[in-house]
């Protein structure tokens, strides 16, 4: 059982959508009372990221993480289209990871 979660948020350049989606996730985690740390990355770095529990990307990628860290596409948090569904999926996934 983990008491906090380490997230990575990644987009093409690590600028615009990363900044916004990081804030959105902070809000969600606050609401769900989940302790978290969030690290920005670029999408190209996804395969080699270590030490994170979950990766949320906002841009297109077919890359997988070499350590098997789950990768979720979080663009709905930026566009608002499908944001509720994504939020639920993200929270469920995080709770699942934390229970291990």
């Amino acid at each position, binding site marked *: 059982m983990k008491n906090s979660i380490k997230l990575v948020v990644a987009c*093409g*350049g*690590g600028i*615009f959508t990363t900044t916004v989606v990081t804030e959105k996730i902070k809000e969600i985690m606050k609401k769900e009372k989940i302790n978290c740390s969030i690290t920005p990355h670029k999408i190209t770095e996804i395969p080699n990221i270590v030490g994170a529990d979950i990766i949320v990307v906002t*841009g297109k990628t077919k890359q997988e993480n070499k350590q098997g860290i789950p990768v979720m596409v979080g663009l709905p948090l930026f566009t608002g289209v499908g944001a509720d569904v994504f939020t639920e999926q993200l929270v469920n996934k995080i709770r699942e990871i934390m229970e291990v």
Partner: protein
Amino acid sequence: MSENKKVTDMTNQEICEMAVNEECECSDAGVVSLATDQTMILTNVNADSQVEIIKILCTKALEKGYITEIFIEKILEREKEFPTGLPTAVPVAIPHIHDGCLKSFFSMATLTKPVAFESMDGAEDDINTEMVFLFGITDPSQQCSVLMKFCELFQNEELMKKMRVAENTEEQIGYLKNALGDYLLI
């Protein structure tokens, strides 16, 4: 694997970024804005491709001294690799980069006919956009609040529909002031 081991596995750069990010709460000190002006808010532009509209907007930023030539080269490269079309209710594209950006700015154009951009999430269908917002951002940790404002704007279907058919720059600036308030530095 224990928590401690995981942290030691991280590179110094990663730990550094993490520390920086912890400080990036959206309550940035004061209002940090993005520069723009009348010459960078364009309406009814006729462009045949995404390259053409990106170049038109970049030329305005170059004239103002906000970017160097390298910005144009990099932003076009970036769009091919990481496209910026958004599947919002009113579809838009938001090309942006920091390479070659000397002063943070935003510019935009409405188009007389839609121009196709690939979707940011890699979805198969292209985004046919009639509005393009182009940004140069020097330091996102300082510009968090203004970027959040733009995100809200893109989700504001009612306002975006008005902006799509704005007849001139003056009308468009009125809508932008409404959406961005003090964050519009003009």
